[in-house]
């Protein structure tokens, strides 16, 4: 471990002032460091997640738990469950069922500790007019706001991270801060992301979101069941995205959006298991994937279960 300089009666700087000082090029000089700043340096020198051994990961997780518990005043568990061998997650969405209610959008926000002020949504529900062109999404409406859904003349298509098998965002990242885990989930190390937003330019699905400012969320709204690569709180200046609720799905649960859908439009399961729901959908329905022409090979399948 790196030695942390502590001065008992040092001037107390909050992190903001400290960052300013660092920006001024004064970092490393005789700035007095208090306890909070010690944790700042620990996270500053933290290694890339995939280069840490289990002991180092454990140390980081307990540091994060300490930090979050202090901040949110509740018991927090930050896990780092690895991908389960023999599992490749896939998602199905029945467009003939979706009624555009956005319950999935808000269930996702509750589960994944997104910022509520300003709002960050990992799922965008697009509305299209029936009979109009929709292949290029150009005629879509993201901000529809009717009294009641579904509306007579429209249909809906929720879009979130497609967990591509050939993810352009991963290739773009200059620091390897984002990668595809063995179960097919594309994750981000929020402590390694430099916030260059090249991945956002590379993503064809608008699935990546940036923390343009410090995320705003009340402590009582924090979901304490966290995963290092999933729903733990983010900081300003990093990118985040849907992880198929990695903190749930690696523990045998459904993603929050699947549970929240009131019409059962959302299917989820292991693509390698012939008896899974998702395999049933793929084998019995006519599925398609969004922007297949880009060869990103999404593991997110759209289909129409009934009707034409």
């Amino acid at each position: 471990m790196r030695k942390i300089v502590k001065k008992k009666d040092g001037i107390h700087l909050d992190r903001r002032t400290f960052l300013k000082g660092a920006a001024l090029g004064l970092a490393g000089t005789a700035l007095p460091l208090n306890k909070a700043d010690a944790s700042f340096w620990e996270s500053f020198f933290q290694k890339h997640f995939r280069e840490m051994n289990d002991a180092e990961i454990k140390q980081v997780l307990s540091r994060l738990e300490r930090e979050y518990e202090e901040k949110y005043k509740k018991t927090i568990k930050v896990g780092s469950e690895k991908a389960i061998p023999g599992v490749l997650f896939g998602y199905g969405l029945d467009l003939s069922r979706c009624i555009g209610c956005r319950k999935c959008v808000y269930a996702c926000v509750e589960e994944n500790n997104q910022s509520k002020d300003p709002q960050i949504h990992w799922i965008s529900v697009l509305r299209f007019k029936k009979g109009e062109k929709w292949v290029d999404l150009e005629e879509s409406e993201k901000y529809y706001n009717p009294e009641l859904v579904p509306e007579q003349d429209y249909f809906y298509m929720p879009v979130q991270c497609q967990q591509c098998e050939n993810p352009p965002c991963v290739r773009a990242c200059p620091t390897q801060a984002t990668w595809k885990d063995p179960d097919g989930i594309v994750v981000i190390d929020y402590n390694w992301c430099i916030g260059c937003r090249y991945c956002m330019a590379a993503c064809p699905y608008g699935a990546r979101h940036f923390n343009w400012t410090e995320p705003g969320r009340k402590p009582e709204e924090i979901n304490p069941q966290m995963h290092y690569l999933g729903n733990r709180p983010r900081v300003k200046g990093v990118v985040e995205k849907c992880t198929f609720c990695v903190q749930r799905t690696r523990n045998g649960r459904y993603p929050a959006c699947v549970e929240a859908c009131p019409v059962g439009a959302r299917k989820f399961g292991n693509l390698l298991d012939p008896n899974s729901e998702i395999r049933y959908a793929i084998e019995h329905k006519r599925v398609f994937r969004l922007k297949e022409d880009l060869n990103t090979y999404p593991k997110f399948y759209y289909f129409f279960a009934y009707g034409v």
Partner: protein
Amino acid sequence: MGSFIRNFFIALRQIFIGDRSYYLWVAFLSFFILLGFSAYLDQLNRGLITTAMRDQVSWGLFISNFTFLVGVAAAAVLLVVPAYLYNFKPIKEIVLFGELLAITAILMCILFILVDMGQPLRVWHILPFIGAMHFPASLLAWDVVVLNGYLAINSIIAFYVLYRLSIGKEYSMTVIGPLIILSIPWAVSIHTVTAFLYNGLSSRPYWNASILAPRFLASAFCSGPAIMLVLFQIIRKRSAVEIDNKAIFKIAELIAYAMAVNLFLLGAEAFKEFYSGGVDSYSIQYLYFGLHGKTSLVPWMWAASLFNVTAFFLFLFPKTRENFTTLNIGCVLIIIGVYIEKGMGLIVPGFVPDTLGEIYEYSPTTSEIVITMGIWAVGALIYTLLLKFAVPIYTGKLRFETKER
């Protein structure tokens, strides 16, 4: 060692030698630097929400300026090529000032990238060995390599030449010759890699066109030399450096050819997009005509086109090219024209409409503009200070002490 320290102070003293207008100029720049710095501190505090960038248009004015300046830096090659390969004497003598401009432009590029980063303190993550540089997969990693390499090459050449001159000796071509030859393809590479950075993204049809890299180079060969022409005239007026008219007119002629290629490539792109009219042409429609009533870039793009065409004709005819009034008008038109076309006109339409079809109209905030002006002021200050050493060494006024003397 003693002479080294003495020489350092001789060099340092140069900064303080200057007339009233020099001090006013430095004060003027410092004002904008401080203003930009305070805006940046606020951005650091509150996050990039101080800019107009959002998830839909996630790059804006900063990356636009970065792209434009990579072009300016690359254009130093336009001076190096005729000077060293064809031994065109009038240009050869002033190559040094072009290389100093390249150094300045690269430093400004690095600053524009830094202010655009969400987590600037983590910049070391991008380095090889101590960080986790994603090389060769990520084009951004390539850009880090080529830009820093270019900075190193130009710095070595410029400072070696200056050092030799400063101790009253001729520089040896066997030492820098290979570096100069290397700098030519390297200059092409920095701009090509920067073009590929956008070009390689299949998610953005507007950038994903093979014409992008050639267009980048053509427009860089217009804007970079145009800036140099203006600077040469200022240097010539303000110092004892003699710059031959022949050099200036030759560069202007080269700009005319570069602009011809640039306009041709633009025409080729416009034809393909508008005539075939597929779904991928929305971005260029947005640029030149607006989309769904959203037209914020339209007047800028038409102005840029008008400026570029006018400048082309001014530089094409020897009569207007060799008249300093029309020459300078042409330079200013090209600088503004390419700045719009290669800056906001390139970056923003890549994001409009966004990948889910949304149109978010980006227009930079005051904070972004102030930070941008601050970085330009830093660049102007760096170039001024570099000239403060280079000019007296070049004219023989400043000589360092050596042991022999």
